[in-house]
């Protein structure tokens, strides 16, 4: 059973803080993704990674960076948190090899920036 685990369910941070959201998957998946989920806007891709140390920008990368030093771990970094980054953040992974693109999601981290 594939497990994608996000380190926190809820986070409250202050404006200007540097914030780290962590995600770990245990199925040796190649691809990992970070999305933010907002009502009426659906899931918007922030960044994805298709290999260790490899990353590509998604649709809304501004204000975010990512790190993938190990295959199983993908971190989302908010360099200087702002109130408009208050959102639900979802991590996902998929095998990626041979076109197996079914994605498995974490439980989400609800971040509030005050």
């Amino acid at each position, binding site marked *: 059973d594939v497990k994608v685990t996000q380190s926190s369910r809820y986070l409250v941070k202050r404006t200007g803080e540097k914030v780290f959201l962590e995600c770990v998957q245990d199925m040796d998946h190649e691809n990992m993704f970070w999305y933010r989920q907002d009502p009426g806007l*659906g899931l918007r*891709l922030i960044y*994805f990674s298709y290999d260790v140390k490899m990353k590509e920008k998604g649709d809304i990368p501004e204000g975010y960076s990512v790190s993938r030093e190990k295959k199983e771990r993908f971190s989302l970094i908010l360099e200087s948190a702002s109130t408009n980054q208050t959102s639900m953040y*979802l991590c996902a992974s*998929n095998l990626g090899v041979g*076109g197996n693109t*079914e994605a498995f999601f974490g439980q989400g981290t609800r971040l509030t920036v005050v």
Partner: protein
Amino acid sequence: AQRVTQPEKLLSVFKGAPVELKCNYSYSGSPELFWYVQYSRQRLQLLLRHISRESIKGFTADLNKGETSFHLKKPFAQEEDSAMYYCALSPFQGGSEKLVFGKGTKLTVNP
């Protein structure tokens, strides 16, 4: 660029009625299409994918390349089908399969 459009933000039907959630996509190649579902307080999960041609929980979806559509259908809706539904597209780009989602449709099935 890849794009997925779900024209209905909200859809409300009565139990036992047919339901259709619309999804249109734009992509010049041959994408893989999915429907994901998120029940209340649960994580997002795959419902079905066009490659497998399965019926899951009574839902089916047919890929229509001419109309670039992948509508989700169920002949008789149940209250437990109430959830948020997302259509998603994965373009095959040789090793890097980005997954793009629509904005979602919230389905409510009334008793």
